[in-house]
């Protein structure tokens, strides 16, 4: 029933406007929500939001970017003193999505009062604004409410957008398939001066183009109707449509516009992701008598100005590093200082977990501080350092960049006596069982272990099911099969995606049975026959097989240019979230391996991850150990992982090193099995004093070999064996030098 009918019925029943009522519902005091992700948020952008403070962050709103998926709802309950007609308004912010309205289904007491409320739209505006629920002409709707308690629920709905989105999704599928057919003939970079005769080779092409265009047009028309005006959300689709018109007229144009075609199709894919999300942030909802409309206090220019000046002033005083409350007084019990190396979201979650589960049970207080880990070294020197530091990456990196190279920080700090050796604690043996043996390898040296693993990641192979099916290729399981696959891919103008980095080299080395260093770490074993053969193989991929050395393999995976790639397993999470145009069309599995004598295939890879360390100058080593034990146990890691995922979505899934916790995270069963299959064959990359020299020199040798001989000015092509052996001499020298420094026995000269 629409509004007019309902209103008429109400008037007929003798309902009157209520008088003088003004009920305010604070958005953050929601009664119920549909998911854990919808909890009160802090907003400091305006003094009109209630409650507001220029100094501290207050929970004053609800929603925002976490309230965006269809089906999520928030419900409030409120008291109405007098029966009658009321108007409803919301003080809200929708500065997330331009060009279309963000829709909500508004229901009172479980029922949608009239048809217009089943998908009410909130348009884009840069800052907080009051939105009175009204019709297109601006007349506020009247809601009849009896005296008593009521509930108001707002649910995210796609409304009219749902059909449009599904039409566009189908169109994108069609366009992708056309693209692949065309590059089968022309390759990804077609020759401008050649006539490929596409119409003759692909007779069905025009028909497919026409069909795609018709489907796209349907979506565009529907969007015009819904969005009401020429919104900028139409631009992407219109651009695609124009290009399709061009191509329908003359298919040979593909040769010229191929790359912009690809870009446009990708833009349409992104369009879907953007349009699917409908965020809205609510500060308060006002239910009031029609004549009793009140202005929002503190929303004028001068109050904003005063507020911003205060905020500027406070920014000099407030300590943004400190998360949550800081406990100074030692009398209350032991106080630990914890430094976190990742980000603010992680720090907030960890602080909450600590307060709830750790401090309450052990009585140990923890001051959580979010600090740039590059300062860890200097802080330790100045005695201003923490007691414990978690999520520490390698010496020169930021937490996210540790994926492609080993983590050498714990061993480097440990041999210089800056972090504690954890084997001194009595229950160390028990605790270390929580992790895979390979995770602890990079953090151990000379019988001591200097850190507990926080995360652990390793490479896996990703493949495009649709493309491989089209070209009739099976997923390769050994490197010989990969070489065959590369020829098939090349015939179809595609490539195998594998970047030259430490993880790739380690994978090949371990599969061939090689080692990095000798037993006690006193010399490098990369000059052994196995290692040299591995290095030769590694270089071949980039010289004989001409794999691209600097590119984004994940991007190419998405466009279909590299249907087989080797990449870190966390790429799975990225693809899930940011590549909806290939959803369901890809999968991952163990990396290709080496056939062994007994018929099995060895799929080893290296691994790397973040570390948790206890600083040596702490006054409470035992309490620090208790904390680390608690932090790395299965329960805490599971809670942390689940919280991070609900907070930031599937792309923030934690690559925890605790095996039990990994099983508890929301991996689909099939994918989890693949992951575990690879995990069984993962090995750690060892770290030794002077070890930073190893990868540097292998990389130098690699570039000497793979760069064109003319560009290095050499008269002969560098051979892998010579280059590697040359460089390993440097590595051995550096290792010996460092060992001398620390009084360790140096390797004997041969």
């Amino acid at each position, binding site marked *: 029933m629409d509004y007019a009918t309902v209103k008429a019925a109400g008037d007929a029943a003798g309902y009157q406007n209520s008088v003088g009522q003004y009920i305010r519902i604070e958005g953050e005091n929601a009664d119920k929500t549909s998911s854990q992700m919808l909890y009160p948020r802090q907003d400091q952008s305006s003094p009109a939001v209630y409650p507001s403070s220029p100094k501290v962050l207050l929970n004053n709103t609800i929603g925002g970017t976490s309230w965006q998926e269809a089906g999520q709802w928030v419900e409030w309950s409120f008291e109405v003193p007098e029966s009658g007609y009321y108007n409803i308004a919301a003080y809200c912010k929708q500065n997330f999505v331009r060009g279309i309205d963000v829709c909500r289904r508004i229901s009172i007491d479980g029922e949608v009062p009239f048809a217009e409320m089943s998908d009410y739209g909130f348009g884009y505006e840069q800052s907080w604004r009051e939105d009175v629920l009204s019709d297109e002409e601006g007349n506020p709707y009247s809601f009849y409410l009896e005296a008593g308690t009521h509930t108001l629920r707002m649910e995210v709905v796609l409304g009219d957008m749902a059909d449009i989105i599904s039409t566009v999704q189908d169109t994108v599928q069609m366009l992708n398939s056309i693209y692949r057919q065309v590059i089968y003939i022309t390759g990804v970079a077609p020759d401008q001066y050649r006539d490929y005769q596409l119409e003759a080779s692909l007779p069905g092409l025009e028909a497919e183009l026409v069909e795609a265009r018709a489907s796209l047009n349907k979506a565009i028309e529907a969007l015009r109707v819904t969005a009401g005006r020429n919104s900028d959300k139409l631009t992407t689709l219109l651009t695609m449509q124009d290009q399709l018109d061009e191509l329908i007229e003359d298919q040979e144009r593909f040769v010229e516009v191929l790359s912009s075609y690809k870009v446009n199709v990708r833009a349409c894919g992104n369009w879907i992701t953007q349009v699917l999300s409908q965020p809205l942030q609510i500060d308060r909802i006002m239910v009031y008598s029609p004549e009793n409309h009140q202005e929002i206090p503190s929303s004028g220019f001068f109050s904003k100005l005063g507020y911003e000046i205060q905020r500027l002033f406070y920014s000099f005083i407030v300590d943004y590093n400190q998360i949550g409350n800081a406990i100074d007084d030692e009398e209350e019990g032991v106080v630990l200082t914890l430094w976190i190396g990742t980000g603010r979201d992680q720090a907030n979650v960890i602080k909450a977990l600590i307060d709830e589960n750790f401090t309450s049970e052990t009585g140990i207080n923890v001051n959580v501080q979010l600090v740039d880990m590059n300062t860890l070294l200097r802080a330790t020197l100045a005695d201003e350092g923490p007691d414990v530091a978690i999520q520490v990456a390698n010496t020169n990196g930021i937490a996210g960049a540790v994926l492609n190279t080993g983590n050498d920080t714990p061993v480097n700090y440990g041999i210089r006596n800056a972090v504690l050796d954890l084997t001194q604690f009595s229950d160390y043996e028990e605790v270390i069982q929580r992790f895979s043996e390979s995770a602890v390898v990079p953090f151990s040296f000379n019988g001591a272990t200097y850190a507990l693993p926080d995360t652990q990641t390793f490479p896996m192979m990703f493949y495009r099911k649709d493309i491989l099916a089209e070209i009739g290729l099976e997923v390769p399981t050994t490197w010989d099969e990969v070489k065959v696959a590369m020829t098939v891919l090349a015939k179809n103008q595609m490539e195998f995606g594998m970047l030259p980095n430490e993880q790739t080299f380690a994978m090949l080395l371990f599969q061939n049975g090689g080692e990095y260093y000798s037993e006690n770490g006193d010399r490098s074993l990369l000059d052994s026959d196995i290692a040299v053969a591995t290095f030769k193989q590694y270089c071949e991929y980039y010289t004989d097989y001409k794999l691209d050395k600097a590119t984004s393999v994940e991007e190419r995976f998405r466009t279909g240019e590299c249907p087989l790639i080797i990449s870190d397993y966390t790429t799975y999470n990225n693809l899930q979230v940011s590549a909806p145009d290939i959803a369901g069309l890809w999968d991952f599995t163990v990396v290709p391996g080496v056939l062994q004598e007994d018929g099995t295939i060895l799929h080893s890879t290296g691994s790397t991850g973040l570390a948790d360390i206890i600083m040596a100058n702490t006054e409470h080593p035992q309490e620090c150990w208790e904390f680390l034990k608690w932090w790395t146990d299965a329960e805490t890691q599971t809670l942390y992982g689940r919280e991070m995922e609900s907070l930031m979505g599937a792309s923030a899934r934690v690559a925890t090193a605790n095996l039990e916790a990994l099983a508890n995270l929301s991996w689909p069963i099939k994918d989890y099995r693949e992951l575990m299959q690879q995990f069984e064959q993962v090995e750690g990359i060892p770290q030794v004093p002077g070890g930073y020299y190893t990868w540097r020199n292998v990389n130098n040798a690699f570039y*000497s070999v793979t760069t064109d001989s003319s560009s290095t000015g050499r008269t002969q092509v560098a051979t892998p064996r010579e280059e590697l052996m040359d460089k390993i001499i440097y590595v051995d020298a550096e290792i010996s030098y460092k060992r001398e420094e620390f009084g360790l026995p140096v390797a004997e000269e041969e």
Partner: protein
Amino acid sequence: MANEAVSSGVSQEALDIAKKQGTLRYQIARNKASYFMIAPYFILFFFFTVLPVLMSIALSFTYFNMLEMPTFVEWKNYIKLFLEDDIFLISLKNTLIFAVVTGPVSYMLCLLFAWIINEFKGKLRAFLTLIFYAPSICGNAYLVWNLILTGDRYGYLNGILLKLDIINEPILWMQTEKYVMPVLIVVQLWLSLGTGFLSFIAGLQTVDKSMYEAAALDGVKNRWQELWYVTLPAMKPQLMFGAVMQITQSFAVADISINLAGNPSVNYAGATVVTHLLDYGSTRFDMGYASAIATILFLLMVGTNKLVQKILGRVGE
């Protein structure tokens, strides 16, 4: 003696006063106000520039891994630096190439541009000055070169060259030894139109106009002669300032090398003295050695400065 003084017409009293006025203490007390005025700058300068240099020289004689107290090792660091360190030689070579090429070239470019822009008036001049000065004020503006020089076949430079059929395969610009130095030199030139340029413009403005007239009367025939005989000598202080700035800049090149070519760069192609120093200081935990490198660099820079000043002293003769 007193008798001599008395007989030469100067009283004993006057001698005493002269002696007292000669002492430093008296001089300082007399110029109290001036000392107070330079005190803030001087204190900061001392604590943040002079003191760290002295500490660095002191540290260069120790072994210091930054996590434990330093231990005295006398000349060991310097011996290793001069006799065993191959990479230091590469980095020194690179830095000198930088200094020799970008130093004078950029200096002359600055002067040329300043001279040309000086011909314009008012708003147009201000606008042109802004355009030339902009890259050096914009902080890390050179990061845009990373985007242009990416080794991906779809990167800007690679893409254009591939399309024009100048190359057949994408080139990894910053990982190919023979391209690293030329690229860094170009970027450094692009960045170096900085403070030197501004000071030249100021200098050109302050040249006394009547000097040009006098020179014309004395037989100066064209703009070049005017430049050499009138403008440049009148601008000597600015030339000196500009020279000092350019020298320091070109010896201290490190940021662009680290951000474009990486640290360590492939086969140390982009290594300069400062990147080598940072490598030892932060990656290799050997601050004592890094301090030794810093001290050598300091001596090198001071020496070069003196040399440049001597050369500039002869401008206009």
